[in-house]
């Protein structure tokens, strides 16, 4: 371990004898926990659209995300820490994405890369497009841009690292068991349109309301 890394870990206010600098750090559990996570964020090898190409560029020689410990792109959700949603999320694809997210072990993070993943992007008006992955998953960092350049992506990932630094093991969402996010996200399914299981009562009520309106209108027309 490098000396600078140890200095980052050290809590202020605790003097370390000079003969032990570089060998010892006094720290909190949070810091060591966060240090471990932030320095080896393994993204999932998971490209959806145009942004995925910029994600590959960020991994390739010129920008080289390996410098941040993020070079290990894992094709399996079981081995990855962060899901970079890189591209347009379509209704046909979203069940697969949610399933993959549920399969990721905690701690897990979601980065919405590009306009499409953040909020639908230029294709938002389309009939097969989900307007932002945050409708289903808790997004940690949004990176606007169409597509974000590799440097913008790396900036977003640095922001994610900063977010991790501030987290506390006591409050993170996944160890609680009671918080909404600590349980699996219900997987939407494809019916006449995309059905989000969490919204079933809402859809039912609205559809009934529409039917009632239609019935009211029908006699008038007749």
């Amino acid at each position, binding site marked *: 371990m490098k000396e600078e890394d140890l200095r980052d870990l050290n809590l202020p206010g605790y003097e370390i004898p000079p003969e032990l600098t570089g060998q010892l750090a006094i720290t909190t559990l949070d810091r060591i926990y966060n240090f471990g996570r932030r320095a080896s964020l393994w993204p999932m090898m998971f490209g959806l659209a145009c942004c995925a190409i910029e994600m590959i560029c960020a991994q390739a020689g010129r920008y080289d995300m390996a410098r941040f410990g993020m070079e290990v792109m894992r094709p399996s959700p079981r081995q990855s820490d962060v899901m970079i949603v890189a591209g347009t999320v379509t209704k046909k694809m979203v069940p697969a994405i949610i399933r993959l997210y549920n399969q990721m072990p905690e701690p897990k993070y979601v980065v919405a890369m590009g306009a499409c993943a953040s909020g639908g992007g230029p294709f938002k008006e389309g009939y097969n497009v989900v307007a932002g992955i945050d409708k289903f998953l808790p997004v940690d960092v949004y990176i*606007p841009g169409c597509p974000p350049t590799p440097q913008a992506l790396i900036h977003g990932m640095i922001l994610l690292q900063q977010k991790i630094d501030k987290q506390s093991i006591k409050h993170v969402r996944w160890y609680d068991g009671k918080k909404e996010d600590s349980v699996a996200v219900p997987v939407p399914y494809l019916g006449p349109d995309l059905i989000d299981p969490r919204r079933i009562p809402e859809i039912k009520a609205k559809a009934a309301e529409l039917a009632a309106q239609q019935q009211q209108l029908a006699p008038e027309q007749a």
Partner: protein
Amino acid sequence: MLTGKGILKGLGVTLKRFIDTYLDDLRWWGKRYYTPEGIAHRSSKDAKGVFTIQYPEEKLPVPEEFRYKPFLLYDEGPNGEKNIRCTSCGICAKACPPQCIWIVRGTDPQTGRPVPQPAGFWIDADICMSCGFCAEYCPFDAIKMDHNYEVASYTRNLMDMNELLKPVSYYASIRPLNYAREEEARKAKEAAKAAKGQ
């Protein structure tokens, strides 16, 4: 026939590139990283060896025409007031392909007549496709494309007028050539107008 000659030939290429890494480091000792000429060398036709730009410590300079997100320009008045160039003519909103620009035309509070000032201006950054049409077709040079790509955040991005406004001096600093060209055109136009008026 499997002689392995082809594999060795290929390995030769990788070996050469591997050695180049060290040779090029030695040749550019001390100025390969974190210097403008080092970055230029690594982006040139003679680039060899490690190709990496050490972002965020060093950044690849973006070209003048680089476009990321739009912003609105204001001229700084002598007393620090902001004279927004936008006249809310709506051309950018009409030209915008994904229709992510929303403008409320300003009205005079007394007369209720439209004034050349936007009362509200939003750009939905989560829809914007960075195509640059708004900047290209704005007749008043009031909306331009920004160079700042470090805009990631923890929330969704809906940019309102406050976020969008940036001074002309900023624009002149990121796009000096365009700025000079536009100023020249403006001056020529004003001179022509003045000549006509006389």
